[in-house]
């Protein structure tokens, strides 16, 4: 059956408004989305994450727009008919459409993951810290981060629960351990040199915290009892905020830290300063 004039209703405002509502969601959604992005990138692997997100933005943005415009169109058309124009599609057509959609999503979703996503994921998680990597330990607790450098010997000294004291020794460093003597312990401020791999060893004393550096595209939960490590390369000098991304109590929102990416020379001098203040 084709649409003929007598199957149309006279113009009415409501369908136009409803169609406009859905259509403009599609249109303004995309326009709004184009102007938005994550904090300015500051790490090497983060470029891969951003590529993944760009790919998803483009593909889903296109589907989002098409879908809403189609709805708007069908609402306009359908509201003006007095008789339906199509009843049933043939089973063959229905099946073919589903297969086409399945293939489309397999390509867009699985394909994107396999081609762009998982290589980045693997590279990030399989990264072995190279010998010139800077190692730093970050210990979360309600509601601050303790930061420890191993010092000249490159090894972390022993810690002991009995020695823990939130004011003077939050991680319970045992200074009688010879390896611990040159350890540098500090709060909430992390210094790393630019363009060199950083290995962050994470621990938690109490709750689950999450080590989140939005600019560096790093997020790692720190579950008590586990000692996860992340390895990444900061690519831009600057001070970047560290936020806790896992609910850890009433002060979760103020568990803020600062990740200073500095030149090699500055890094050395900052560590010397911190060492002298131990």
């Amino acid at each position, binding site marked *: 059956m084709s649409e003929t004039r007598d199957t149309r209703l006279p113009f009415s405002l409501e369908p136009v408004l409803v169609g406009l509502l859905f259509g403009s969601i599609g249109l303004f959604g995309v326009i709004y989305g184009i102007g938005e992005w994550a904090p300015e990138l500051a790490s090497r692997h983060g470029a891969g994450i951003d590529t993944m997100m760009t790919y998803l933005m483009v593909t889903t943005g296109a589907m989002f727009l098409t879908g809403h415009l189609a709805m708007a169109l069908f*609402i306009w058309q359908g509201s003006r008919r007095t008789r339906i124009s199509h009843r*049933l599609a043939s089973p063959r057509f*229905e099946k073919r459409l589903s297969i086409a959609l399945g293939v489309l999503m397999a390509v867009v979703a699985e394909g994107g993951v396999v081609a762009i996503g998982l290589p980045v994921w693997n590279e990030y998680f399989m990264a072995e810290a190279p010998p010139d990597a800077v190692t730093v330990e970050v210990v979360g607790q309600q509601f601050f981060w303790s930061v420890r450098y191993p010092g000249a010997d490159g090894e972390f000294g022993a810690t002991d629960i009995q020695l823990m004291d939130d004011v003077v020794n939050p991680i319970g460093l045992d200074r009688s351990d010879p390896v611990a003597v040159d350890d540098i312990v500090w709060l909430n401020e992390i210094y790393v040199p630019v363009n060199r791999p950083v290995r962050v060893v994470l621990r938690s004393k109490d709750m*689950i915290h999450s080590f989140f550096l939005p600019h560096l595209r790093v997020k790692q939960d720190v579950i008590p009892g586990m000692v996860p490590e992340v390895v990444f390369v900061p690519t831009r000098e600057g001070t970047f905020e560290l936020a806790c991304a*896992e609910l850890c109590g009433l002060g979760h929102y103020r568990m803020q830290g600062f990740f200073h990416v500095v030149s090699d020379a500055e890094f050395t001098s900052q560590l010397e300063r911190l060492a002298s203040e131990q």
Partner: protein
Amino acid sequence: MSEAHDPGFVRRYIFSTDHKIIGIQYILTGLVMGLVGGLLAVLIRIQLGWPTAQWELLETLMPRGYPSGFMAPEFYISVVTMHGTIMVFFFISYVLVSGFGNYLVPLQVGAKDMAYPLLNMLSYWFALLSAVVMMASFLVEGGAAAAGWTAYPPLSAIASAVPGSGLGQSIWLVSMAIFIASFTMSGLNVVATIFTMRAPGMTMMRLPLTIWSYFIAAILGLLAFPPLTAAAVLLLFDRHLGTSFFLPSGLVVAGQPLSFQGGSPLLWQHLFWFLGHPEVYVLILPALGIVGDVVPAFTRKPVFGYRLNVYSLIAVGVLSMVVWGHHMFVSGMSPFTGEYFTLATMLITIPMTVYGVNLVASLFGGRMRLATPMLFSLAAVALFGSGGFGGLFLGNATADMQLHDTYFVVGHFHFMIGGVTLMGTFAALYFWFPKMFGRSMHEGFGKLHFWGTFAPFFMVFFGQHFLGLQGMPRRYYAFNTYEYLEGTAGQNTMLSVIVMVLVAAQFVFMVNFLWSLFKGQPAEANPWAATTLEWTVASPPPHGNFGDTLPAVHRWAYEYSPESTGEDFAPQTAGPNDAPITA
């Protein structure tokens, strides 16, 4: 059926075993809980919109939560936790899943009642009990649970971790265990009823999509929920009996070394999400099923691709059991496991896309009437698509590294279990109100409610996706100390203002609902000219639904504009001589 003696008011309306009364009891309980959850959302948005403001009125109302007029951070996270818990488990689960499930399943399969009416009544009373227990936790020392609706230990396990982890958290766990017991009972009932009580001629492939969706949701609930009961009991043991199922050695909380040993917080996450992920489908499938049945009634043509929709629902059900780890990509579990969960999660988008696109295709070529149930159904379709696109980001482990636990997730799940289910619930309420109460709701106020609900809802949660992209973490009491989030302050205030419009629109609904209960236009048996069995009986249907003989079913539920007849529709009971049988 002999109706010889009147069972009396109490047996008829309160301790009733009639599935329709029980369904309405669930719906009313759920709506009240939804109101509570909504008011909690207002408190959340007030805090996020104006983080430094002082509220004397709120201090007067809740002196413990607002010392000297400022919201206490511990109160904030209690409110967030209870908002999520109430909305997921006590609003949507009760109204949409148990409420409409109870009401519709026997009517639409052509049965006089549920398979086990007494069990059905018991499941409602358990449900009410669990809601009351949950609400009681606001009153105890330390306040309500504050570890998030996901209740991750150690936060939820150790009383000194946060005030809400005192008695409040124990009550939360007990309430959840009761809830699951109740949900298991009603799930059994739904499965048994659909399997064994279908009217003659009602084959599985003639069931309306609504029934298919309840069927799959009930099976998912039966398979996925019990592990959380076990987990809740184990967590109670950790809390009160000194066991260490979820707690490792070496914990030092508030300066005190604790003596737990050998447990793993990660175990809880697996058990929780083994329930949690299927749970989100338990909630959304009924909404999708209902939309699949409401749309044809307002386009006067069959749903597009019925069979494939059924297969999609089944596929989604199966896949939803094996993707729970996508909530834990950055938890520290093995990266190989992460790869598996990414690939599995992406698979689920295939049947979901088929179902969603088929809903849009169902609009094509129809003769559309934009009545209120249809408007809300259209809203559900749009949100389902948009939420699915967000799912593509989150199910992709690589993108999720940035987006996990930010407002992107908050936007995503509000589109899905917040939005699709809310819009589906309203579609169902407007659609079946005449059947339930014998009166119609007011269309004009219904449309006002639609405009006041959908547009603001979309703006708020669409915007939150992009706040998350900027790295705004969820469950934060305030953001004003973070320099990189300075730009979000204005957006947060604006979203809070829009939420106030959204909330105001819900009062239009409440007034319309209550007014229509008593004063609405009397409704005929089939005001929407729909095909399913409940519309062949009076509004409201009598006790026993179909009188002495069960209806004989001759066709599927989508015989709109049947071929070669001048008719507009043929009910499922119409014989082969009335109209050609499509399926």
